[in-house]
């Protein structure tokens, strides 16, 4: 009986739709068990809080507090989609239990960090740090430290690490901003990584992405008009610059927000990516990585996100043009709709099957849900200063 009482007490401290009580006992008040495949987290960047949401219900189930400075925060999920790992700006790594709606582990692992990744086998969580520059790797179960990779270059200074992604073969790939290098840390041999260091990839890599099949790592370069590409099947071949000098000779606009590469839309033969300092989306042929077209858009693109069917890509824009979203038709490679969902559109997330698009509207304290087909608004959830939206289907995707 006391066991049941404890389970019930736990249940009520968390939220009603709870698995624990269902597992532990069969009393009459036991809430129904549920899965996590329809859940997601929305970062409330100013309040150190995340909202736990049900995507089908379009409803918030719980708010989880005490995550610290969440500017630029992102999340990855455990393979069973029960746990989220949230990477805060202040160097904290927090493990959240989606079923119980609460924090289960938390480490203050650096002074300033910018994101992270989980290994393909689900065993390791890596965090990319600005201060002190490098990568730290933790046991995904306990958040016990596993490895430290200081990003030393030149005379031993430490570079800030950006664009950290997981790659097949228990590898993590990341870029060193000041050093202009891309490193591959291979954990397939155990907790002691073997590091492949690719030097001279270009000036100031500011973000990176891995293509959905996990073969190519691409870093955007802030210091030049071009991107660095590494074929992860052949890291010994080093990096090559692609789209070198795109827009050379044209004047760049001031960049008030760095574009994000993570959301690169990859559809058939094409990749769509945000141009830095230009009101353009670049269309690249994925066979030989040359520029096919440029799509003029409303502002400087931040995210260019395609749904799983690849039919359209949704684009948001940098401050101060961040009240607008445009939709690009992947057939014609033209903008086919312009929406003004609200102020401060920070992030775009497709539902797992792509029938809905969720937009965070930071300066309207809301998340808007749109029909991906008709582009009509379906719902609006009140969420204070939302930024990143992360659904659990990311658990099964390389690089997310």
């Amino acid at each position, binding site marked *: 009986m006391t066991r049941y009482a404890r389970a019930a007490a736990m249940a009520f401290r968390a939220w009603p739709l709870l698995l624990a009580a269902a597992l532990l006992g069969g009393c009459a008040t036991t809430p129904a068990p549920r899965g996590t495949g329809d859940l997601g987290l929305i970062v409330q960047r100013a309040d150190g809080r995340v909202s736990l949401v049900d995507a089908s219900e379009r409803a918030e189930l719980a708010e989880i507090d005490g995550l610290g400075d969440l*500017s630029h925060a992102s999340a990855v999920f455990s393979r069973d989609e029960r746990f989220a790992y949230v990477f805060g*700006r202040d160097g904290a790594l927090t493990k959240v239990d989606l079923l119980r709606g609460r924090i289960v582990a938390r480490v203050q692992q650096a002074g300033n960090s910018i994101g992270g990744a989980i290994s393909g086998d689900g065993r390791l969580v890596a965090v990319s740090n600005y201060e002190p520059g490098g990568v730290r790797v933790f046991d995904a179960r306990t958040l016990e430290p596993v490895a430290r990779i200081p990003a030393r270059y030149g005379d031993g200074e430490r570079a800030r690490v950006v664009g950290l992604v997981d790659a097949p073969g228990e590898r993590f790939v990341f870029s060193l901003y000041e050093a202009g290098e891309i490193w591959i840390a291979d954990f397939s041999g155990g907790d002691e990584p073997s590091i492949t260091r690719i030097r001279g990839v270009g000036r100031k890599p500011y973000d990176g992405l891995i293509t959905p099949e996990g073969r190519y790592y691409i870093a955007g370069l802030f210091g030049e008009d071009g991107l660095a590409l590494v074929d992860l099947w052949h890291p010994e071949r080093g990096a090559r610059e692609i789209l070198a000098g795109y827009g050379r000779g044209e004047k760049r606009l001031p960049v008030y927000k760095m574009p994000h590469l993570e959301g690169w839309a990859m559809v058939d033969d094409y990749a769509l990516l945000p141009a830095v300092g230009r009101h353009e989306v670049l269309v690249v042929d994925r066979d030989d990585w040359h520029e096919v077209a440029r799509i003029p858009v409303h502002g400087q693109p931040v995210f260019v996100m395609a749904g799983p069917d690849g039919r359209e890509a949704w684009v948001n824009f940098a401050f101060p043009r961040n009240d607008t979203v445009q939709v690009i038709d992947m057939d014609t490679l033209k903008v086919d709709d312009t929406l003004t969902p609200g*102020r401060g559109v920070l992030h775009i997330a497709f539902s797992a099957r792509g029938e809905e698009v969720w937009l965070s509207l930071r300066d309207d304290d809301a998340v808007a849900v749109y029909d991906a087909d008709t582009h009509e608004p379906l719902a609006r959830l009140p969420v204070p200063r939302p930024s990143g939206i992360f659904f659990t289907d990311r658990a099964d995707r390389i690089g997310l």
Partner: protein
Amino acid sequence: MLIRNSAFLRRLRRTAFPLLLIAVTVPALSAAGTPADAERPAALRGRSLGSIVREDCGACHGLRLTGGLGPDITASALSGRDVGALAATIEHGRPGTAMPPFGPLFSPAEIRAIARGLKSGRYLQENDR
């Protein structure tokens, strides 16, 4: 309202946004000292300087201004720094780095106010919009 709905301006905004911003804000500036709220880009309308600093400078400097891609710009990090020099950095940016010029978005008076606000640390105590 009139300005915002003009098809011509919409087209112009699409192609020559920064120029237009200057064109729109400068006349308003000379009248009132700061751009009239209604004539600002939507992203700035109805928002306090503190909110803009926390959220939009915070995109690079961190929401608590303790640094990110850009350096720590909290009051303690900027102590001993000259308001005029900080204002110049904010207005013109730092060419060759990721620090962009905010001259096209804010009046010189607003930029000085931001520089003073950073040094006073007040933006981190406030939480207004």
